[in-house]
C-alpha cells in the first residue's frame, strides 16, 4: 500500500485517533492492510508481512499489555465518525458485519448480534472494528493475463489463495483488464458482469464503484452470488461473469449454468494450493467436473502466481 493511501485512510478517524495513527512509522503504515482495534484490545496494524501492536505513543511494542487500548467512549466516537452518525443507513451492511466507506475501504464490525429467524437482523453493542484498507494494484495480473485468453475469448478461471493472499485484489485487476482490454497484449475488452456480494471487489459506496473495475463492468453490489448471476445473465448480456469466494455445491451448478449460457466465469476460492482445494467437496466438483479452464494459485503478495 502506498503512503498516500495510508494518509487518506487516516482522514476517516476522529482527531485524537488520527494523531496517534499519524505517529506510526510510515514504513509500517505503508504496509498496512488492516487496522484492528476494540474495547480493551490493543491497536494492531496487520499487513501481509507485519502484525504490529502499537502503543499510545505510536511506537511498536511486543507486549500487548503496552498497546494502546480503546475505551467505550472512543469506540462510540470512532463509529460516529465512520458512519457519519447514520447507523440506520448501514442496516443492511451491518447485517453482513461491515460497512463500506468512500474509496472502497471496508470496516468489519463485531459485537452483539440480534437474530430473527436464525438470521442476523442487526448488530449492536459493537466492540471491535477491523478497518480493511482497499487499494488497486494496477499491473499485478500482467504476467498471467495472456494465459487466461484463447482466440480472443476469456477462459473460465478460478483464483486460489489463502486468506490475505490477494485473491480479491487479483480478481479486481483481472476484471479491470478484461473490461478495458489490454492493447499491448492484444486482448480486446469484454462486457463483464460483477456480482459483488460483500462490496469487496468494486468497493461500492452508495452504489458507485470506488475502485477501478473497468468501464465495461456492470456491478450488482451487495447481491447474493446466485441471484446476481442469473439477473446479470438475463439483463446485462455479459461475456464474462465474475464473483468472489465460491466453493459450495450450489456454486458448481451456477458455474455450469453460466457456461451453458456461453459466458465465461471468473471466481476466487480459499485454498493454499490445488490439493487443499480438492479436499473441499464443492471446490472439488468445480475443479474436476465444471468447465473450469484455468486455475491461478497465489502464493502471497509479491510472489509470481502459478497458472494451471
Amino acid at each position, binding site marked *: 500500500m502506498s503512503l498516500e493511501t495510508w494518509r487518506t485512510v487516516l482522514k476517516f478517524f*476522529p482527531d485524537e485517533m488520527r494523531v496517534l495513527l499519524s505517529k506510526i512509522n510510515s514504513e509500517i503504515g505503508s504496509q498496512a492492510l488492516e487496522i484492528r482495534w476494540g474495547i480493551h484490545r490493543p491497536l494492531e496494524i496487520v499487513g501481509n508481512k507485519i502484525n504490529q501492536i502499537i502503543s499510545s505513543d505510536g511506537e511498536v511494542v511486543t507486549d500487548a499489555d503496552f498497546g494502546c487500548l480503546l475505551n467505550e467512549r472512543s469506540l*462510540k*466516537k470512532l463509529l*460516529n465518525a465512520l458512519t457519519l*452518525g447514520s*447507523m*440506520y*443507513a448501514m442496516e443492511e451492511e451491518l447485517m453482513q458485519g461491515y460497512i463500506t466507506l468512500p474509496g472502497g475501504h471496508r470496516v468489519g464490525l463485531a459485537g452483539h448480534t440480534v437474530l430473527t429467524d436464525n438470521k442476523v437482523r442487526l448488530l449492536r453493542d459493537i466492540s471491535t472494528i477491523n478497518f480493511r484498507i482497499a487499494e488497486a494494484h494496477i499491473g499485478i495480473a500482467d504476467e498471467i493475463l495472456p494465459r487466461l485468453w484463447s482466440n480472443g475469448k476469456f477462459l473460465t478461471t478460478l483464483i486460489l489463495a489463502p486468506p490475505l493472499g490477494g485473491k480479491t485484489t487479483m480478481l479486481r485487476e483481472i476484471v479491470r483488464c478484461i473490461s478495458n482490454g489490454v492493447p499491448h497484449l492484444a486482448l480486446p475488452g469484454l462486457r463483464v458482469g460483477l456480482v459483488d456480494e460483500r462490496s469487496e471487489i468494486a468497493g461500492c459506496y452508495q452504489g458507485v464503484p470506488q475502485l477501478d473495475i473497468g468501464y465495461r463492468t456492470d456491478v450488482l453490489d451487495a447481491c447474493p452470488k446466485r441471484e446476481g448471476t442469473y439477473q446479470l445473465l438475463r439483463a446485462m448480456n455479459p461475456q464474462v461473469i465474475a464473483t468472489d469466494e465460491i466453493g459450495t455445491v450450489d456454486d458448481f451448478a451456477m458455474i455450469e449454468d453460466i457456461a451453458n449460457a456461453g459466458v465465461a466465469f471468473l471466481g476466487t476460492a480459499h485454498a493454499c494450493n490445488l490439493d487443499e482445494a480438492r479436499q473441499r467437496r464443492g471446490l472439488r466438483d468445480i475443479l474436476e467436473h465444471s468447465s473450469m479452464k484455468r486455475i491461478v494459485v497465489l502464493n502471497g503478495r509479491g510472489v509470481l502466481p502459478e497458472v494451471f
Partner: protein
Amino acid sequence: MIRLCGAVLIIFGTSALGILHAARFHERCRVLREWMAVLGTLKTAISYNTCLLPDAFTNMALESEDVLFRNSLKKAAQDLKYGSTHSVSELWENIVQQTSNNVLKAADFSELRRVGMFLGNSDTHDQLEKLNLAIMNLQGNLAQATSDAAKRTTLAGYSGFASGIMLLLLMWR
C-alpha cells in the same frame, strides 16, 4: 395638548409592549411547528434508509423557510463528515439552541434533546418509532402552546393598555 400627546404616547407604548410580549407566545408556536416539519422531513429521510444524516440535514435546510433553521442545519451537515470529532447529539444540541429563539420552554427542550440522544445510532425501525413519539409529544406541546397563546395574547394586550392607564394615573395624581 402636550399632556394629551404624552398620555397617548404612554398608552401606545405600554400597549405595544403588551402586544410584543403576546407575540412571543405565537413565536413559540411557530418554532414548534417548524420543528415538527423538520422532524417530519427527517422521518422521511430515515425511512428511505440510504439517506445519511448530513444529506438529511441538507435536505431539511433546503426545505426550511426559517433562516435560523436553515443556517444551523447547513452547519451541522458540514460538521458531520468522515473523521468528525463532533457527535450527532452535540450537533443536534447546537441546532436546538440556535433555533430556539429564546421562546421554547423546558418541556420543548427536553423533547428535542431526547431526539439528539438517539438520532442516528440505531436501526431504521427504532429511529422511526422514536421520531414518531417525539413528533407526538411536540404536537401535545404545540396544542398547549396554541391554547396558551390564545388566552394570553388578549390578556397581554389588555395588560399593556391597563398598565399605561395606571402609569398615567400615578403620574397625574
